[in-house]
């Protein structure tokens, strides 16, 4: 979708979201101050490596973090209404109604003992006041829209009779069934093979256009980001390190962690190149450094990095790094980092 048509009145406004778990080893900070906006009809990608708190962050917004030892603070405004801390009952119309969710593993996301039609109808009738017959024809229509062949007979089949890709289509149909304003997708293609991945992403973009919804997509795959996102939030150790429009981020990344992520994407036009990786492992969320969480792995670490860098920048491109703007540009332009 062209950037210009995106309405920037935020549909979802996340401010200083923090999720921590009290464990025997200490306080585990899974999400540590996440802020971002999602505009109307915008696709926001949240990218980061495993354990960076992406999934926990979005689950916490909808009250899907059920662990008793979890503490969730901050603010999540959806359509100007605070939804953080609402009770299950208050969240019911939002979950599945105005916010649909797609999950990582389609193999286990559906209840095994009911037909896919039953499960679709269950959700449709929970939110829209339709008769059984009307809900069923809506379910068949949805299955057709997500590209399931012969939806009239497949509607009465059980989840185990579908392949992984087809199940993910069913989950997408479910997420879209009540015309949600926002679709949250948690690594929707991770469990699928590559050709199916592309189809599912295409499908999501097409349907997003049809249904006029916004999407938050979580991934660790820069390829998915490039394919879909209008704007990208790069997360490291539960904190956002860089937020920028997708093209801007790919062309002028400013944070050393983003450089590392982009350099780790294989390029087709360069022959026999050893793929660059980020040295070291992700920090443990049990003892985050007081300063920049990426400092222990960063090639450009300075004394100042012992202090936590704020998100700063101009317009809609912000990053959390103590390097000066001039330094960021020069380092990125040196041959080692040219792309």
């Amino acid at each position, binding site marked *: 979708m062209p950037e210009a048509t995106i309405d920037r009145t935020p549909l979802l406004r996340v401010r200083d979201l923090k999720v921590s778990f009290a464990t025997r080893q200490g306080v585990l900070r899974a999400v540590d101050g996440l802020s971002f906006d999602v505009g109307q009809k915008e696709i926001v990608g949240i990218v980061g490596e495993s354990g960076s708190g992406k999934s926990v962050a979005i689950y916490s917004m909808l009250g899907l973090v059920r662990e*008793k030892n979890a503490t969730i603070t901050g603010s999540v405004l959806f359509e100007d209404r605070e939804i953080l801390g609402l009770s299950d009952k208050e969240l019911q119309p939002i979950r599945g109604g105005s916010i649909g969710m797609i999950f990582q593993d389609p193999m*286990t*996301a559906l209840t095994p003992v009911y037909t896919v039609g039953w499960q679709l109808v269950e959700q449709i009738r929970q939110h829209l006041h339709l008769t059984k017959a009307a809900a069923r024809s809506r379910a068949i229509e949805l299955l057709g829209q997500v590209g399931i062949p012969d939806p009239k007979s497949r509607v009465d089949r059980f989840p185990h009779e579908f392949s992984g890709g087809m199940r993910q289509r069913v*989950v997408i149909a479910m997420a879209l069934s009540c015309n949600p304003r926002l679709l949250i997708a948690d690594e929707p293609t991770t469990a699928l093979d590559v050709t199916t991945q592309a189809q599912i992403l295409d499908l999501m973009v097409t349907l997003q256009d049809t249904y006029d919804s916004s999407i938050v997509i979580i991934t660790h795959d820069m390829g998915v980001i490039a394919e879909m996102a209008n704007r990208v939030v790069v997360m490291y150790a539960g904190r956002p390190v860089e937020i920028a429009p997708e093209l801007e981020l790919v062309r002028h990344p400013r944070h050393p962690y983003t450089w590392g992520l982009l350099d780790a994407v294989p390029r087709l036009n360069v022959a026999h190149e050893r793929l660059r990786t980020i040295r070291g492992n992700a920090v443990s969320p049990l003892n985050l450094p007081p300063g920049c969480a990426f400092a222990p792995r960063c090639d450009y670490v300075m004394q100042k990095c012992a202090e936590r860098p704020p998100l700063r920048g101009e317009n809609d491109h912000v990053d959390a790094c103590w390097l000066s703007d001039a330094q960021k540009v020069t380092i990125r332009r040196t041959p080692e980092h040219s792309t």
Partner: protein
Amino acid sequence: MFYFIVRRFASAILVLFAISVTVFLIFFATPGVDPAARIAGRSASPQILAQVAKEFGLNRPLPIRYLLMMEHLFIKQDLTSYVNIGDRVVPQITQAAPVTLSLVIGAAVIWLIVGVLGGVVAAANQGKFIDPFIMFIGIAAVSVPAYWLGEVMNLLTQSKFHTSIFSWVPPPGYVSFTTSPSQWFLHLLFPWLTLAALYAGIYARVLRAELVNALNEDYIRTARAKGLSERRILFRHALRCSLISIVSLFGLDFGALIGGAALLTEVVFGLPGVGLLTYTSLQNLDLPVIMGCVMYGAFFVVLANAVVDVLYAYLDPRVRLA
């Protein structure tokens, strides 16, 4: 589904046939054992031994003997005990069966209701006081032997408080449903409670564990993300999937109990059921009765398992393909 049912019952019949052959071989073809002497009981006269040999065709080939035996058992139903001379085996069993059926079915209703209720309430209140409380009662019920619990019940209802609060409890024994439904109920009430206690404890604990597992499944997160109520998530999604293991457990327990495993309860409460019949015939080494009881028990175990498998396939669509 229909095809599945037909196939399942066909295989049940095959299993029954195999059991009858096995049981027959154990009794009549065990090397070094004279079946005539076994059937005739201790210190039988030569005339009786000869009579037994003739009746069961002991000098004829093994397959003929098997057919003769089955004829006595199922077609003529004239298999006779030589220990208690003249007692027909089949009528004894058909008399004892309703007692055991009444006992076990009634107890099953109680333990299913109490067990499922206990498991659901405990799982829905994880971490609160009521959860470990129910689980403790469960383990206590599992740990108390039926004969002890039964005797305590008898002590309370028949002796200690028989003249006060439990004056409405009839003396131990059995009254058939057709004679007097109310007396049938009163006679069986405490046996039911005794037998149900153990199983209710087991079922509550198993169901709680299953539910806790199910509630951590991905599909529960999906159900919650669909905006369903917590009640609906618990009953329609988590419980529905957890019931599958409860049903298979029930099939095994129910079949075994009908087949005579309710012996202890029957003895304590003086109920002339199949367990009691098997027990006395074993004490007397009354071979024809033992054989009849074993066949009867096998029949109900196999039947209960077939019914459970069909139920299982109804509950879990993944099974129907297998």
